[in-house]
Structure formats: C-alpha cells, structure tokens
C-alpha cells in the first residue's frame, strides 16, 4: 500500500476547501456530511487518474453545485427535512399506502357518505370540549360527555355549532386553513372523549362523590338522614338499660355498627370475643371509650334518654318472649366467655 503523494494531497485539500466555500449557507451537519469524506474520495480519485483535476473535477463551483444537487441539498439551505419531519413523512406515506390499497376501495365510496355525520360530530365534540374546559374536574367531565352543557346555554351553543358546521359543510366552504384546524381539533377532541368514555368510572360514582361530605363514616350504620350510628342502647319498658344484648335483623343477620370506631368523635371500641375467639360485632351496647381532654380515654356513658311510658294496663312485652321464638330463627348466638 502506498499513500498519496504530498502534491496530490495538497491539491485535494485546496479543492475541498474551494468547494466548501460554496456550502457556507448550509447547516453545519449538512456541510460536514458533504465535505467530511470528500477529501478521502478525491484522494482515491486522484490516485487512479492523476489528471482528474483537469478532466473530472474542473471548477470547484460547478463541482459544488453538482454535489449539492446529487445530495438533494438546494441553494440557500437544506432541503433534507429534520428527523421529525422525515418521521412524519414516513408515517404519512405508510398511512397513504394503506388508504390507497385496492382493498380499501369500498371505503373510498362509503366514507364520503358519512361526511354529514362528521359535520354534526365535529360541532358536538368541540362544544363538549368547550364545556369541559369551562366545567372543571373530570367528575364533571363524565356528565358533559353525553349531554354537553346540561343547561340552556350549553344546548343553544350545541345547536348553533351544529347548524354552523353543517351549513359550512353543505356549502363546501369548510376547506380552508381555519376549517382544517377545526377538523383536526375536533378529531383530537373526539379521540379524547372516546378515551375518557372508555376509561372513566360509571356515571353512578359521580353521585356517590357528591354525598361523601354528609358525615357517615364508611362501614357504620346510618340513620336515614345520613348521621352515623355509633352504638345501640336497648332499654326495657321500665327504662332499665339492658346489657349484652345480641341484635339481629329480620333475616337473622347480625346487626353490626361496623368494624371500627368513629374517628370523627374519637370513639374507641373494645372488641368482644366469643368462646371460640371470634370477634362479636352485634353485642350491644358496645363497650366504648371516648377522648375527654385531660382525662384521656374514658368509658362512654349511656345517653340520657326519655323512655316513653306505655299506656296503663298494657302488659310490657319485653320480658314475655313467645316460647317458639326464644332465639332468632336462623342465627346462632355466640356463647360468651363469662356469661352474666
């Protein structure tokens, strides 16, 4: 292997420099791309044909112009698009190829028939998005997706938008730059709406959410007005508080106030255990302690209640249980460790 003679190397270097002067308008990367290997290339060339400078290369300006054209770089800058632009072009070409496929021909006839539907849908999608943007949180979004606005203003806006969109569509004036933007935004909005529709929780959860501030901690019994029931106190007709009473509902299911205490009132519950070591949830009153400032946890006292007086002569029924129903029909009463 021999190397190029110094004379050739110098001429090549000069020529490359001269060519490079015609590339000053190019981006650095493009210039580097064209010139980076040119010296090597021309050195190869000169080694094979020593008269190449006269016969082949000639004027650096002409060579530069030809090189630029060959590389697809036009005067005044790069025509080679950037990475993203190239990617976009590739994607568009692929999509176009699918669209142009002969098997897609039936779609080409069918899709234009859907155009009027699109005129309505794009108006709807835009109004929905507008309503969403003004409406706030995603919970509200779920409402708006089906019926935008849900009020007179929203409905009027929807009707107006649909009318405007359909009118433009029928007149064929929706081809301009602005409309193309509208179509794009609407298509994007539609995609977002569909996505939210598919992923959002069912509408019912919206309503649960709105009741969450009523104050009944989850898992506790509640009064019809929503206030939590934290304990049950059972009195007989004479007004005596009964202790250790098992409570069942009509179906024989134990009635429990819930697994935990009411944090709101800082009530601690002492769990009761049956002979088998299981927690009993329906033995009332439940033994509870409450926070009482400096005294700390104190035993929760029964409430002050006025026991209604029964009419004179009426037999109190609390102690006369019919013989057949000594215990609830389907429930098993857990034996206590220490029966009273």
């Amino acid at each position: 292997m021999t190397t190029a003679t110094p004379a050739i190397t110098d001429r090549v270097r000069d020529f490359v420099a001269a060519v490079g002067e015609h590339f000053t308008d190019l981006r650095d990367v493009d210039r580097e791309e064209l010139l980076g290997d040119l010296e090597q290339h021309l050195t190869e060339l000169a080694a094979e044909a020593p008269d190449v400078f006269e016969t082949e290369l000639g004027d650096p300006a002409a060579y530069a112009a030809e090189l630029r054209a060959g590389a697809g770089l036009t005067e005044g800058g790069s025509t080679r698009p950037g990475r993203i632009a190239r990617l976009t072009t590739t994607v568009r070409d692929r999509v176009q190829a699918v669209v142009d496929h002969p098997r897609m021909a039936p779609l080409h006839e069918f899709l234009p028939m859907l155009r009027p539907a699109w005129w309505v849908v794009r108006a709807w999608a835009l109004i929905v998005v507008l309503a969403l943007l003004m409406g706030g949180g995603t919970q509200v979004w779920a409402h708006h997706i089906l019926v935008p606005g849900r009020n007179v203003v929203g409905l009027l806006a929807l009707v107006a938008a649909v009318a405007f969109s359909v009118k433009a569509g029928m007149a064929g004036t929706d081809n301009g730059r602005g409309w193309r933007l509208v179509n794009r935004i609407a298509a994007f909005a539609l995609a977002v709406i569909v996505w939210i529709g598919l992923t959002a929780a069912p509408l019912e959860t919206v309503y649960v959410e709105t009741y969450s501030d009523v104050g009944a901690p989850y898992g506790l019994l509640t009064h019809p007005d929503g206030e939590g029931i934290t304990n049950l106190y059972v009195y007989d007709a004479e007004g005596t508080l009964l202790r250790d009473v098992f409570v069942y509902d009509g179906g024989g299911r134990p009635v429990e106030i819930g697994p935990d205490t009411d944090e709101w009132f800082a009530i601690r519950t002492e769990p009761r255990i049956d002979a088998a070591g299981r927690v009993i949830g329906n033995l009332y009153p439940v033994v509870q302690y409450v926070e009482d400032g400096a005294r700390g946890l104190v035993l929760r006292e029964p409430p002050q209640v006025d026991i209604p007086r029964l009419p004179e002569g009426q037999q109190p029924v609390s102690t006369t249980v019919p013989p057949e129903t000594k215990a609830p029909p389907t429930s098993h009463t857990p034996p206590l460790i220490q029966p009273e």
Partner: protein
Amino acid sequence: MRGVETSQLLKGVLDLAVLAVLDGDDAYGYDIVRKLRESGLEDVGDASVYGTLRRLFQAGCLSSYVKPSDEGPNRKYYAINSTGRDQLETGVKEWQRFVADIDHLLPKEMTA
C-alpha cells in the same frame, strides 16, 4: 458535453443506478462512477455520484467501510443493506411502470 435533457433524466434515476451497481458488489466512489459510465451513462459526473452516495448513506440504504488498497490510499467502500435493497426493489418497479407508461404514450413510429 452533457445534454440538459440527459442530466435531468439521470437525476431521477441516479439513486436507482447507484443502488443497482452496489447490488452487484461493494464498490468505492470512483469505482461506481466508472461502472456507471461503462454501462452507458457516460455523462454521469463524479460530484453527482458522490452526492448521491452520501444521500443514500444518510438515508440508511448503504453501509460503508474503509479498505487498504495496493495501488494507493485507503478506499472507502459502500455496500447495499436490506433497506437499500428494499429501495432498489421499489425503484425497479416504479421505473418499469414509468417506462411502460411513457412507451405507451410515445408515437409508435418513432419508438420502433
């Protein structure tokens, strides 16, 4: 002297011609120019070919490697890769369709 028409025609198919040459065997820049000229494209210029090579290389159609030469400096060889082969295949089909279309269009008595 290169006719304007020929050079314009050549511009469109130089990619295809270069890929076709490299599909036969790996080659370095001037080697490709020579092979193109031997095939009848006498007007092809070194700068055009070199520019085309760089563009195809940038487009990911070619790979390159440097190989020592007995007669002179190291040579930069270009080789076609699978992307380039795909491009060549597409280009060949396009070219054949184009030629058929134009043939169909041209007056019969002149093409005969």
